[in-house]
Protein backbone atom coordinates (compact mmCIF):
# COMPACT_ATOMS: atom_id res chain seq x y z
CA UNK A 1 0.00 0.00 0.00
CA UNK A 2 2.65 2.48 1.03
CA UNK A 3 4.59 1.58 -2.10
CA UNK A 4 1.46 2.33 -4.14
CA UNK A 5 1.05 5.71 -2.43
CA UNK A 6 4.76 6.37 -2.81
CA UNK A 7 4.59 5.54 -6.51
CA UNK A 8 1.49 7.68 -6.99
CA UNK A 9 3.04 10.66 -5.27
CA UNK A 10 6.30 10.31 -7.12
CA UNK A 11 4.41 9.95 -10.38
CA UNK A 12 2.49 13.16 -9.68
CA UNK A 13 5.64 15.13 -8.90
CA UNK A 14 7.40 13.70 -11.93
CA UNK A 15 4.33 14.50 -14.03
CA UNK A 16 4.37 18.12 -12.94
CA UNK A 17 7.93 18.45 -14.13
CA UNK A 18 7.06 16.79 -17.43
CA UNK A 19 4.24 19.28 -17.81
CA UNK A 20 6.63 22.17 -17.34
CA UNK A 21 8.92 20.72 -19.97
CA UNK A 22 6.11 20.49 -22.50
CA UNK A 23 4.04 23.58 -21.80
CA UNK A 24 6.07 25.92 -24.00
CA UNK A 25 6.14 23.40 -26.79
CA UNK A 26 2.38 23.08 -26.55
CA UNK A 27 1.93 26.84 -26.68
CA UNK A 28 4.03 27.27 -29.80
CA UNK A 29 2.51 24.30 -31.55
CA UNK A 30 -1.08 24.75 -30.52
CA UNK A 31 -1.26 28.48 -31.09
CA UNK A 32 1.37 29.30 -33.71
CA UNK A 33 1.26 25.92 -35.43
CA UNK A 34 5.04 25.72 -35.28
CA UNK A 35 6.55 22.34 -34.43
CA UNK A 36 9.69 23.39 -32.58
CA UNK A 37 12.19 20.55 -32.86
CA UNK A 38 14.68 22.72 -30.98
CA UNK A 39 12.51 22.73 -27.87
CA UNK A 40 14.55 20.01 -26.19
CA UNK A 41 17.70 21.97 -26.97
CA UNK A 42 16.15 25.01 -25.27
CA UNK A 43 15.41 22.91 -22.21
CA UNK A 44 18.98 21.68 -21.96
CA UNK A 45 20.36 25.13 -22.69
CA UNK A 46 18.25 26.42 -19.83
CA UNK A 47 19.78 23.78 -17.61
CA UNK A 48 23.27 24.95 -18.59
CA UNK A 49 22.40 28.57 -17.88
CA UNK A 50 21.11 27.60 -14.45
CA UNK A 51 24.22 25.51 -13.89
CA UNK A 52 26.53 28.26 -15.10
CA UNK A 53 25.19 30.99 -12.81
CA UNK A 54 25.26 28.53 -9.94
CA UNK A 55 28.85 27.68 -10.80
CA UNK A 56 29.96 31.30 -11.02
CA UNK A 57 28.16 33.02 -8.18
CA UNK A 58 26.53 30.05 -6.43
CA UNK A 59 23.07 31.30 -7.30
CA UNK A 60 20.38 28.95 -6.04
CA UNK A 61 18.71 27.19 -8.99
CA UNK A 62 15.28 28.28 -7.86
CA UNK A 63 16.50 31.82 -8.48
CA UNK A 64 18.74 30.74 -11.33
CA UNK A 65 15.71 29.50 -13.20
CA UNK A 66 14.62 33.09 -13.67
CA UNK A 67 17.97 33.94 -15.19
CA UNK A 68 17.59 30.92 -17.47
CA UNK A 69 14.07 32.02 -18.34
CA UNK A 70 15.27 35.52 -19.19
CA UNK A 71 18.17 34.33 -21.33
CA UNK A 72 16.06 31.81 -23.21
CA UNK A 73 13.28 34.35 -23.67
CA UNK A 74 15.74 36.66 -25.33
CA UNK A 75 17.07 33.90 -27.53
CA UNK A 76 13.61 32.70 -28.46
CA UNK A 77 12.35 36.19 -29.21
CA UNK A 78 15.30 36.93 -31.47
CA UNK A 79 15.09 33.61 -33.31
CA UNK A 80 11.41 34.02 -34.07
CA UNK A 81 11.62 37.69 -34.89
CA UNK A 82 14.53 37.53 -37.29
CA UNK A 83 14.64 33.96 -38.46
CA UNK A 84 11.49 31.87 -38.16
CA UNK A 85 9.23 34.78 -39.15
CA UNK A 86 10.96 34.63 -42.52
CA UNK A 87 9.24 31.38 -43.39
CA UNK A 88 6.00 31.23 -41.37
CA UNK A 89 3.95 31.78 -44.50
CA UNK A 90 5.56 28.77 -46.14
CA UNK A 91 4.13 25.25 -46.26
CA UNK A 92 3.07 23.55 -43.02
CA UNK A 93 6.20 21.69 -42.06
CA UNK A 94 8.72 24.28 -43.19
CA UNK A 95 9.13 25.60 -39.66
CA UNK A 96 9.75 22.05 -38.54
CA UNK A 97 12.62 21.88 -40.99
CA UNK A 98 13.99 25.19 -39.81
CA UNK A 99 13.90 24.25 -36.15
CA UNK A 100 15.47 20.91 -37.07
CA UNK A 101 18.44 22.89 -38.32
CA UNK A 102 18.41 25.04 -35.19
CA UNK A 103 18.36 21.95 -33.01
CA UNK A 104 21.41 20.52 -34.74
CA UNK A 105 23.29 23.79 -34.30
CA UNK A 106 22.38 24.43 -30.66
CA UNK A 107 23.08 20.88 -29.52
CA UNK A 108 26.45 20.75 -31.22
CA UNK A 109 27.27 24.21 -29.93
CA UNK A 110 26.55 23.04 -26.38
CA UNK A 111 28.69 19.99 -27.02
CA UNK A 112 31.59 22.23 -27.92
CA UNK A 113 30.99 24.83 -25.22
CA UNK A 114 30.19 22.58 -22.27
CA UNK A 115 31.49 19.16 -23.45
CA UNK A 116 29.21 16.14 -23.34
CA UNK A 117 29.87 15.56 -19.62
CA UNK A 118 26.87 14.99 -17.40
CA UNK A 119 26.07 17.93 -15.17
CA UNK A 120 23.71 18.60 -12.33
CA UNK A 121 23.08 21.71 -10.28
CA UNK A 122 24.06 21.02 -6.67
CA UNK A 123 21.83 22.19 -3.82
CA UNK A 124 21.98 21.35 -0.16
CA UNK A 125 18.31 20.49 0.02
CA UNK A 126 16.99 19.17 -3.32
CA UNK A 127 17.96 15.61 -2.40
CA UNK A 128 16.29 15.66 1.01
CA UNK A 129 12.75 14.54 1.50
CA UNK A 130 9.92 15.05 3.95
CA UNK A 131 8.42 12.00 5.65
CA UNK A 132 4.66 11.55 5.55
CA UNK A 133 4.00 8.32 7.40
CA UNK A 134 5.70 5.63 5.34
CA UNK A 135 6.17 7.74 2.22
CA UNK A 136 8.81 10.25 1.23
CA UNK A 137 8.24 13.58 -0.46
CA UNK A 138 11.45 14.64 -2.24
CA UNK A 139 11.92 18.34 -1.57
CA UNK A 140 13.49 19.32 -4.91
CA UNK A 141 10.77 17.65 -6.91
CA UNK A 142 8.08 19.11 -4.70
CA UNK A 143 9.41 22.61 -5.42
CA UNK A 144 9.73 21.85 -9.11
CA UNK A 145 6.16 20.61 -9.11
CA UNK A 146 5.03 23.81 -7.43
CA UNK A 147 6.85 25.89 -10.01
CA UNK A 148 5.24 24.07 -12.91
CA UNK A 149 1.74 24.43 -11.47
CA UNK A 150 2.24 28.13 -10.83
CA UNK A 151 3.72 28.67 -14.28
CA UNK A 152 0.82 26.88 -15.95
CA UNK A 153 -1.72 28.94 -14.06
CA UNK A 154 0.16 32.12 -14.93
CA UNK A 155 0.20 31.14 -18.58
CA UNK A 156 -3.52 30.39 -18.57
CA UNK A 157 -4.15 33.78 -17.02
CA UNK A 158 -1.96 35.48 -19.58
CA UNK A 159 -3.63 33.85 -22.56
CA UNK A 160 -7.24 33.97 -21.41
CA UNK A 161 -7.35 37.17 -19.39
CA UNK A 162 -5.06 39.72 -20.99
CA UNK A 163 -4.98 41.82 -24.12
CA UNK A 164 -1.63 40.28 -24.95
CA UNK A 165 -3.17 36.85 -24.66
CA UNK A 166 -5.98 37.81 -26.99
CA UNK A 167 -3.51 39.15 -29.55
CA UNK A 168 -1.48 35.94 -29.27
CA UNK A 169 -4.52 33.78 -29.97
CA UNK A 170 -5.69 36.00 -32.83
CA UNK A 171 -2.30 36.12 -34.50
CA UNK A 172 -2.00 32.37 -34.19
CA UNK A 173 -5.32 31.93 -35.94
CA UNK A 174 -5.02 34.39 -38.82
CA UNK A 175 -1.89 36.52 -39.10
CA UNK A 176 -3.20 38.72 -41.89
CA UNK A 177 -6.50 39.44 -40.16
CA UNK A 178 -4.67 40.13 -36.89
CA UNK A 179 -2.56 42.75 -38.65
CA UNK A 180 -5.75 44.33 -39.97
CA UNK A 181 -6.74 44.73 -36.31
CA UNK A 182 -3.55 46.69 -35.78
CA UNK A 183 -1.79 43.86 -33.95
CA UNK A 184 1.96 43.78 -34.54
CA UNK A 185 2.02 40.17 -35.69
CA UNK A 186 5.82 39.92 -36.02
CA UNK A 187 6.28 41.09 -32.46
CA UNK A 188 3.47 38.96 -31.06
CA UNK A 189 4.89 35.85 -32.70
CA UNK A 190 8.33 36.59 -31.36
CA UNK A 191 6.85 37.23 -27.93
CA UNK A 192 4.98 33.92 -27.95
CA UNK A 193 8.02 31.98 -29.03
CA UNK A 194 10.11 33.83 -26.49
CA UNK A 195 7.73 32.93 -23.67
CA UNK A 196 7.80 29.28 -24.73
CA UNK A 197 11.58 29.27 -24.81
CA UNK A 198 11.70 30.98 -21.43
CA UNK A 199 9.49 28.30 -19.91
CA UNK A 200 11.69 25.64 -21.47
CA UNK A 201 14.64 27.34 -19.82
CA UNK A 202 12.93 27.20 -16.42
CA UNK A 203 12.12 23.53 -16.90
CA UNK A 204 15.72 22.89 -17.82
CA UNK A 205 16.99 24.42 -14.59
CA UNK A 206 14.52 22.28 -12.64
CA UNK A 207 15.76 19.16 -14.38
CA UNK A 208 19.32 20.14 -13.66
CA UNK A 209 18.44 20.44 -9.99
CA UNK A 210 16.63 17.14 -9.46
CA UNK A 211 18.42 15.14 -12.13
CA UNK A 212 21.31 15.21 -14.58
CA UNK A 213 21.64 16.54 -18.09
CA UNK A 214 23.97 16.78 -21.07
CA UNK A 215 23.52 17.95 -24.66
CA UNK A 216 22.54 14.50 -25.89
CA UNK A 217 19.43 14.65 -23.69
CA UNK A 218 17.86 17.35 -25.88
CA UNK A 219 16.11 15.17 -28.44
CA UNK A 220 14.57 13.11 -25.66
CA UNK A 221 12.87 16.17 -24.21
CA UNK A 222 11.55 17.20 -27.62
CA UNK A 223 10.00 13.78 -28.12
CA UNK A 224 8.55 13.86 -24.63
CA UNK A 225 7.03 17.28 -25.25
CA UNK A 226 5.43 16.02 -28.45
CA UNK A 227 3.65 13.23 -26.64
CA UNK A 228 2.64 15.21 -23.58
CA UNK A 229 1.43 18.25 -25.50
CA UNK A 230 -0.82 16.21 -27.75
CA UNK A 231 -1.99 13.84 -25.03
CA UNK A 232 -3.16 16.80 -23.01
CA UNK A 233 -4.49 18.57 -26.04
CA UNK A 234 -3.14 21.49 -28.05
CA UNK A 235 -4.42 25.02 -27.77
CA UNK A 236 -5.37 24.59 -24.14
CA UNK A 237 -2.79 25.87 -21.71
CA UNK A 238 -3.75 23.26 -19.12
CA UNK A 239 -3.14 20.55 -21.70
CA UNK A 240 0.57 20.13 -21.08
CA UNK A 241 0.21 19.94 -17.30
CA UNK A 242 -2.59 17.40 -17.53
CA UNK A 243 -0.74 15.39 -20.16
CA UNK A 244 2.36 15.43 -17.98
CA UNK A 245 0.50 14.28 -14.90
CA UNK A 246 -1.18 11.45 -16.80
CA UNK A 247 2.12 10.20 -18.22
CA UNK A 248 3.78 10.57 -14.82
CA UNK A 249 1.09 8.56 -13.06
CA UNK A 250 0.73 5.91 -15.73
CA UNK A 251 4.47 5.24 -15.69
CA UNK A 252 4.63 5.22 -11.90
CA UNK A 253 1.76 2.78 -11.55
CA UNK A 254 2.83 0.62 -14.47
CA UNK A 255 6.24 0.49 -12.83
CA UNK A 256 4.64 -1.19 -9.85
CA UNK A 257 2.50 -3.74 -11.64
CA UNK A 258 4.18 -4.40 -14.97
CA UNK A 259 7.34 -6.45 -15.49
CA UNK A 260 10.49 -5.13 -17.11
CA UNK A 261 10.25 -2.13 -19.37
CA UNK A 262 6.68 -2.65 -20.52
CA UNK A 263 6.05 0.64 -18.75
CA UNK A 264 7.27 2.61 -21.74
CA UNK A 265 5.11 0.63 -24.12
CA UNK A 266 2.14 1.35 -21.90
CA UNK A 267 2.70 5.10 -21.89
CA UNK A 268 2.41 5.16 -25.66
CA UNK A 269 -0.52 2.79 -25.66
CA UNK A 270 -2.33 5.25 -23.41
CA UNK A 271 -1.48 8.06 -25.81
CA UNK A 272 -2.88 6.25 -28.82
CA UNK A 273 -6.00 5.07 -27.04
CA UNK A 274 -6.72 8.54 -25.68
CA UNK A 275 -6.40 10.03 -29.15
CA UNK A 276 -8.71 7.46 -30.68
CA UNK A 277 -11.31 8.11 -27.99
CA UNK A 278 -10.78 11.87 -27.82
CA UNK A 279 -9.41 12.97 -31.20
CA UNK A 280 -8.18 16.31 -29.87
CA UNK A 281 -6.54 15.27 -26.64
CA UNK A 282 -7.83 15.16 -23.10
CA UNK A 283 -8.72 18.84 -22.81
CA UNK A 284 -7.65 19.93 -26.28
CA UNK A 285 -9.62 22.29 -28.42
CA UNK A 286 -9.16 22.30 -32.16
CA UNK A 287 -9.76 25.84 -33.30
CA UNK A 288 -9.52 25.35 -37.01
CA UNK A 289 -12.17 22.61 -37.03
CA UNK A 290 -14.76 24.77 -35.24
CA UNK A 291 -17.26 24.37 -38.01
CA UNK A 292 -15.92 22.77 -41.15
CA UNK A 293 -18.51 24.32 -43.36
CA UNK A 294 -20.97 27.17 -43.52
Amino acid sequence: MTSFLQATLYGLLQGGLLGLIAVGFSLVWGVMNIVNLAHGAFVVLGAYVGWQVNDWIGLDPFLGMFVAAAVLFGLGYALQRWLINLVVNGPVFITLLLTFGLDLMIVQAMNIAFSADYRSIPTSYAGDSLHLGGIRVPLGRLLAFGVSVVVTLALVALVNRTRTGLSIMATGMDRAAARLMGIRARHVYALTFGIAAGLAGMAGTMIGTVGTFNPAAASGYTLLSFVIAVLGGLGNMYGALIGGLVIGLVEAWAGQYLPGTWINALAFLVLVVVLIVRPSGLVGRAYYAARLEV
Partner: protein
Amino acid sequence: MLLLLAALGLQSQLYSGQERTVTAIFMFVALAQAWNLLGGYAGYASFGQVVFFGIGGYFTAVAMTHWHLSFWTCLVLGGVVAALFGALIGMPLLRLRGHYFAIATLGVAEGIREVVTNLPGLTGGGAGITLPTVGDQATTAYLGNDGFYLLFLALAALAVLVSGLVAGSRAGYALRAIHQDEQAAAAMGVNTTRIKVLTFALSGLITGLVGATYAFQQVTIFPERLFDVDITVLMVVMVVIGGSGTVLGPLVGAVILQFLSEYLRQNYTSYHIFLLGAIIIVAVVLLPQGAVNYLRDARRTGEYSLLANVRRYRL
Protein backbone atom coordinates in the same frame (compact mmCIF):
# COMPACT_ATOMS: atom_id res chain seq x y z
CA MET B 1 14.99 6.35 -66.17
CA LEU B 2 18.17 8.16 -67.13
CA LEU B 3 19.00 8.54 -63.47
CA LEU B 4 18.57 4.80 -63.10
CA LEU B 5 21.06 4.05 -65.87
CA ALA B 6 23.44 6.66 -64.53
CA ALA B 7 23.26 5.05 -61.09
CA LEU B 8 23.99 1.64 -62.59
CA GLY B 9 26.94 3.04 -64.55
CA LEU B 10 28.22 4.81 -61.47
CA GLN B 11 28.55 1.61 -59.50
CA SER B 12 31.62 0.26 -61.24
CA GLN B 13 33.42 3.53 -60.51
CA LEU B 14 32.94 3.35 -56.75
CA TYR B 15 35.02 1.78 -54.04
CA SER B 16 32.90 -0.27 -51.69
CA GLY B 17 32.84 2.44 -49.03
CA GLN B 18 31.65 5.12 -51.39
CA GLU B 19 29.34 2.46 -52.73
CA ARG B 20 27.85 2.09 -49.26
CA THR B 21 27.44 5.84 -49.02
CA VAL B 22 25.53 5.91 -52.29
CA THR B 23 23.53 2.89 -51.15
CA ALA B 24 22.47 4.87 -48.10
CA ILE B 25 21.31 7.65 -50.42
CA PHE B 26 19.15 5.19 -52.36
CA MET B 27 17.68 3.95 -49.12
CA PHE B 28 16.60 7.43 -48.11
CA VAL B 29 15.25 8.21 -51.57
CA ALA B 30 12.93 5.25 -51.16
CA LEU B 31 11.98 6.20 -47.61
CA ALA B 32 11.35 9.86 -48.44
CA GLN B 33 9.21 8.88 -51.42
CA ALA B 34 7.19 6.52 -49.25
CA TRP B 35 6.56 9.22 -46.65
CA ASN B 36 5.61 11.68 -49.37
CA LEU B 37 2.77 9.46 -50.62
CA LEU B 38 0.56 10.26 -47.66
CA GLY B 39 2.45 13.10 -45.96
CA GLY B 40 3.18 15.04 -49.11
CA TYR B 41 0.16 14.46 -51.31
CA ALA B 42 -2.59 14.11 -48.71
CA GLY B 43 -0.97 16.23 -46.00
CA TYR B 44 -1.24 13.47 -43.40
CA ALA B 45 2.21 13.66 -41.83
CA SER B 46 3.08 10.37 -40.18
CA PHE B 47 5.71 10.94 -37.49
CA GLY B 48 5.81 7.23 -36.83
CA GLN B 49 6.63 6.17 -40.38
CA VAL B 50 9.74 4.39 -39.09
CA VAL B 51 7.48 1.78 -37.53
CA PHE B 52 7.07 0.18 -40.96
CA PHE B 53 10.83 0.23 -41.39
CA GLY B 54 11.22 -1.50 -38.05
CA ILE B 55 8.47 -4.03 -38.69
CA GLY B 56 9.87 -4.93 -42.10
CA GLY B 57 13.33 -5.27 -40.59
CA TYR B 58 12.39 -7.26 -37.53
CA PHE B 59 10.04 -9.51 -39.44
CA THR B 60 12.93 -10.41 -41.72
CA ALA B 61 15.32 -10.91 -38.83
CA VAL B 62 12.93 -13.12 -36.89
CA ALA B 63 11.75 -15.10 -39.91
CA MET B 64 15.30 -15.76 -41.11
CA THR B 65 16.61 -16.65 -37.64
CA HIS B 66 13.77 -18.67 -36.19
CA TRP B 67 11.85 -19.95 -39.22
CA HIS B 68 14.84 -20.19 -41.56
CA LEU B 69 13.04 -18.53 -44.45
CA SER B 70 15.12 -17.22 -47.33
CA PHE B 71 15.77 -13.49 -47.38
CA TRP B 72 13.77 -13.02 -50.55
CA THR B 73 10.70 -14.56 -49.01
CA CYS B 74 11.20 -12.39 -45.94
CA LEU B 75 11.65 -9.29 -48.08
CA VAL B 76 8.27 -9.74 -49.72
CA LEU B 77 6.49 -10.88 -46.58
CA GLY B 78 8.13 -8.12 -44.54
CA GLY B 79 6.73 -5.55 -46.95
CA VAL B 80 3.29 -7.14 -46.89
CA VAL B 81 3.22 -7.36 -43.10
CA ALA B 82 4.17 -3.69 -42.87
CA ALA B 83 1.42 -2.83 -45.35
CA LEU B 84 -1.17 -4.80 -43.42
CA PHE B 85 -0.06 -3.14 -40.22
CA GLY B 86 -0.46 0.20 -41.98
CA ALA B 87 -4.00 -0.64 -42.97
CA LEU B 88 -4.72 -1.88 -39.46
CA ILE B 89 -3.61 1.24 -37.60
CA GLY B 90 -4.78 3.43 -40.47
CA MET B 91 -8.43 2.59 -39.83
CA PRO B 92 -8.59 4.24 -36.41
CA LEU B 93 -5.73 6.73 -36.72
CA LEU B 94 -6.57 8.29 -40.08
CA ARG B 95 -9.70 9.72 -38.54
CA LEU B 96 -7.41 12.03 -36.59
CA ARG B 97 -6.50 15.40 -38.03
CA GLY B 98 -3.13 17.03 -38.57
CA HIS B 99 -1.05 17.15 -35.43
CA TYR B 100 -3.02 14.47 -33.70
CA PHE B 101 -2.50 11.98 -36.48
CA ALA B 102 1.20 12.80 -36.53
CA ILE B 103 1.63 12.08 -32.84
CA ALA B 104 -0.65 9.07 -32.74
CA THR B 105 1.57 7.41 -35.33
CA LEU B 106 4.62 8.48 -33.36
CA GLY B 107 3.07 6.83 -30.33
CA VAL B 108 2.51 3.62 -32.28
CA ALA B 109 6.11 3.57 -33.48
CA GLU B 110 7.57 4.14 -30.01
CA GLY B 111 5.14 1.61 -28.59
CA ILE B 112 6.04 -1.10 -31.08
CA ARG B 113 9.72 -0.46 -30.40
CA GLU B 114 9.12 -1.10 -26.72
CA VAL B 115 7.20 -4.26 -27.58
CA VAL B 116 10.11 -5.48 -29.68
CA THR B 117 12.54 -4.60 -26.90
CA ASN B 118 10.44 -6.57 -24.46
CA LEU B 119 10.29 -9.82 -26.41
CA PRO B 120 13.92 -10.92 -26.05
CA GLY B 121 12.98 -14.53 -26.76
CA LEU B 122 11.77 -13.64 -30.23
CA THR B 123 13.59 -10.45 -31.15
CA GLY B 124 16.68 -10.55 -28.96
CA GLY B 125 15.33 -7.49 -27.17
CA GLY B 126 17.66 -4.61 -26.51
CA ALA B 127 20.64 -6.86 -27.16
CA GLY B 128 19.69 -6.89 -30.80
CA ILE B 129 19.34 -9.84 -33.14
CA THR B 130 21.87 -11.17 -35.61
CA LEU B 131 20.67 -12.51 -38.94
CA PRO B 132 22.18 -15.81 -40.09
CA THR B 133 24.60 -14.85 -42.85
CA VAL B 134 27.46 -17.27 -42.25
CA GLY B 135 27.74 -21.04 -42.00
CA ASP B 136 24.91 -23.53 -42.48
CA GLN B 137 22.51 -21.21 -40.63
CA ALA B 138 22.57 -18.86 -43.59
CA THR B 139 19.41 -19.28 -45.64
CA THR B 140 20.51 -16.76 -48.25
CA ALA B 141 24.08 -15.85 -49.16
CA TYR B 142 25.00 -12.38 -47.95
CA LEU B 143 24.56 -9.98 -50.83
CA GLY B 144 27.66 -7.90 -50.20
CA ASN B 145 28.01 -4.21 -50.98
CA ASP B 146 27.35 -4.67 -54.68
CA GLY B 147 24.22 -6.68 -54.06
CA PHE B 148 22.77 -4.17 -51.64
CA TYR B 149 23.70 -1.31 -53.94
CA LEU B 150 21.55 -2.85 -56.63
CA LEU B 151 18.75 -3.89 -54.29
CA PHE B 152 18.41 -0.44 -52.71
CA LEU B 153 18.68 1.13 -56.14
CA ALA B 154 15.80 -1.07 -57.24
CA LEU B 155 13.75 -0.07 -54.20
CA ALA B 156 14.46 3.61 -54.80
CA ALA B 157 13.43 3.24 -58.45
CA LEU B 158 10.29 1.41 -57.38
CA ALA B 159 9.41 4.14 -54.89
CA VAL B 160 9.90 6.91 -57.45
CA LEU B 161 7.87 4.96 -59.98
CA VAL B 162 4.99 4.39 -57.55
CA SER B 163 5.04 8.03 -56.52
CA GLY B 164 4.95 9.07 -60.16
CA LEU B 165 2.04 6.77 -60.95
CA VAL B 166 0.06 7.92 -57.93
CA ALA B 167 0.66 11.58 -58.75
CA GLY B 168 -0.85 11.27 -62.20
CA SER B 169 -3.69 8.96 -61.28
CA ARG B 170 -7.21 9.42 -59.91
CA ALA B 171 -5.81 8.64 -56.50
CA GLY B 172 -3.33 11.47 -56.86
CA TYR B 173 -6.16 13.92 -57.50
CA ALA B 174 -8.12 12.59 -54.55
CA LEU B 175 -5.16 12.81 -52.19
CA ARG B 176 -4.38 16.38 -53.21
CA ALA B 177 -8.04 17.25 -52.79
CA ILE B 178 -8.03 15.72 -49.31
CA HIS B 179 -4.93 17.75 -48.53
CA GLN B 180 -6.76 20.97 -49.41
CA ASP B 181 -10.16 20.25 -47.89
CA GLU B 182 -11.36 16.85 -46.78
CA GLN B 183 -15.00 17.96 -46.47
CA ALA B 184 -15.10 19.26 -50.01
CA ALA B 185 -13.30 16.16 -51.26
CA ALA B 186 -15.98 13.96 -49.71
CA ALA B 187 -18.64 16.17 -51.27
CA MET B 188 -17.04 15.43 -54.65
CA GLY B 189 -17.66 11.73 -54.04
CA VAL B 190 -14.22 10.74 -52.77
CA ASN B 191 -14.33 7.90 -50.24
CA THR B 192 -11.71 9.63 -48.15
CA THR B 193 -11.24 6.92 -45.53
CA ARG B 194 -10.65 4.22 -48.10
CA ILE B 195 -8.11 6.15 -50.15
CA LYS B 196 -6.23 7.33 -47.07
CA VAL B 197 -5.96 3.85 -45.62
CA LEU B 198 -4.86 2.33 -48.93
CA THR B 199 -2.21 5.00 -49.41
CA PHE B 200 -0.97 4.56 -45.87
CA ALA B 201 -0.67 0.83 -46.51
CA LEU B 202 1.16 1.46 -49.76
CA SER B 203 3.69 3.76 -48.13
CA GLY B 204 3.97 1.16 -45.37
CA LEU B 205 4.72 -1.49 -47.97
CA ILE B 206 7.62 0.44 -49.49
CA THR B 207 9.00 1.44 -46.11
CA GLY B 208 8.72 -2.17 -44.98
CA LEU B 209 10.64 -3.44 -48.00
CA VAL B 210 13.40 -0.95 -47.27
CA GLY B 211 13.46 -1.97 -43.62
CA ALA B 212 13.75 -5.64 -44.53
CA THR B 213 16.66 -4.98 -46.85
CA TYR B 214 18.34 -2.73 -44.30
CA ALA B 215 18.13 -5.45 -41.66
CA PHE B 216 19.81 -7.96 -43.94
CA GLN B 217 22.50 -5.44 -44.85
CA GLN B 218 23.22 -4.61 -41.20
CA VAL B 219 23.25 -8.29 -40.13
CA THR B 220 22.88 -7.27 -36.49
CA ILE B 221 19.97 -4.93 -35.72
CA PHE B 222 18.84 -3.13 -32.59
CA PRO B 223 15.40 -1.72 -31.71
CA GLU B 224 16.87 1.73 -30.98
CA ARG B 225 18.01 1.99 -34.57
CA LEU B 226 15.24 0.21 -36.45
CA PHE B 227 12.60 2.34 -34.72
CA ASP B 228 14.80 5.43 -34.48
CA VAL B 229 12.58 8.52 -34.65
CA ASP B 230 15.52 10.29 -36.29
CA ILE B 231 14.85 8.20 -39.39
CA THR B 232 11.30 9.51 -39.56
CA VAL B 233 12.49 13.06 -39.01
CA LEU B 234 15.00 12.62 -41.83
CA MET B 235 12.23 11.45 -44.15
CA VAL B 236 10.17 14.55 -43.37
CA VAL B 237 13.16 16.84 -43.64
CA MET B 238 14.18 15.41 -47.00
CA VAL B 239 10.66 15.68 -48.40
CA VAL B 240 10.20 19.24 -47.19
CA ILE B 241 13.62 20.38 -48.36
CA GLY B 242 13.04 18.92 -51.81
CA GLY B 243 9.43 20.00 -52.08
CA SER B 244 6.58 17.98 -50.62
CA GLY B 245 3.70 16.73 -52.72
CA THR B 246 5.90 16.37 -55.80
CA VAL B 247 7.50 13.35 -57.41
CA LEU B 248 10.97 14.83 -57.73
CA GLY B 249 11.00 16.65 -54.39
CA PRO B 250 11.74 13.69 -52.13
CA LEU B 251 14.31 12.40 -54.61
CA VAL B 252 16.14 15.71 -54.75
CA GLY B 253 15.82 16.26 -51.01
CA ALA B 254 17.16 12.84 -50.11
CA VAL B 255 20.11 13.06 -52.47
CA ILE B 256 21.07 16.59 -51.41
CA LEU B 257 20.72 16.06 -47.68
CA GLN B 258 22.30 12.61 -47.55
CA PHE B 259 25.19 13.63 -49.77
CA LEU B 260 25.71 16.87 -47.88
CA SER B 261 25.75 15.32 -44.43
CA GLU B 262 28.09 12.59 -45.65
CA TYR B 263 30.44 15.12 -47.21
CA LEU B 264 30.48 17.32 -44.12
CA ARG B 265 30.96 14.36 -41.81
CA GLN B 266 34.02 13.22 -43.68
CA ASN B 267 35.64 16.62 -44.03
CA TYR B 268 34.69 18.48 -40.85
CA THR B 269 34.73 15.64 -38.36
CA SER B 270 34.36 17.71 -35.22
CA TYR B 271 31.66 20.23 -36.19
CA HIS B 272 29.92 18.78 -39.23
CA ILE B 273 26.54 18.67 -37.48
CA PHE B 274 26.77 22.37 -36.76
CA LEU B 275 27.50 23.13 -40.40
CA LEU B 276 24.69 20.87 -41.57
CA GLY B 277 22.26 22.74 -39.34
CA ALA B 278 23.46 26.09 -40.64
CA ILE B 279 23.15 25.02 -44.27
CA ILE B 280 19.64 23.63 -43.73
CA ILE B 281 18.58 26.91 -42.16
CA VAL B 282 19.91 28.95 -45.06
CA ALA B 283 18.25 26.62 -47.55
CA VAL B 284 14.91 26.88 -45.75
CA VAL B 285 15.02 30.65 -45.59
CA LEU B 286 15.83 30.97 -49.28
CA LEU B 287 13.52 28.25 -50.58
CA PRO B 288 10.68 27.86 -48.11
CA GLN B 289 8.51 26.00 -50.60
CA GLY B 290 11.22 23.43 -51.31
CA ALA B 291 13.66 23.29 -54.20
CA VAL B 292 11.39 21.64 -56.74
CA ASN B 293 8.36 23.78 -55.99
CA TYR B 294 10.53 26.89 -56.16
CA LEU B 295 11.65 26.00 -59.67
CA ARG B 296 8.09 25.21 -60.72
CA ASP B 297 6.73 28.50 -59.38
CA ALA B 298 9.66 30.41 -60.82
CA ARG B 299 9.08 28.91 -64.24
CA ARG B 300 5.38 29.74 -64.01
CA THR B 301 5.74 33.34 -62.85
CA GLY B 302 9.16 34.05 -64.40
CA GLU B 303 10.21 35.37 -60.97
CA TYR B 304 13.56 33.74 -60.18
CA SER B 305 14.87 36.24 -57.62
CA LEU B 306 15.46 34.53 -54.26
CA LEU B 307 14.87 37.81 -52.46
CA ALA B 308 11.37 38.04 -53.90
CA ASN B 309 10.92 34.44 -52.84
CA VAL B 310 11.91 35.26 -49.28
CA ARG B 311 9.55 38.22 -49.30
CA ARG B 312 6.70 35.99 -50.41
CA TYR B 313 6.89 33.71 -47.38
CA ARG B 314 7.98 36.01 -44.59
CA LEU B 315 5.56 37.42 -42.09
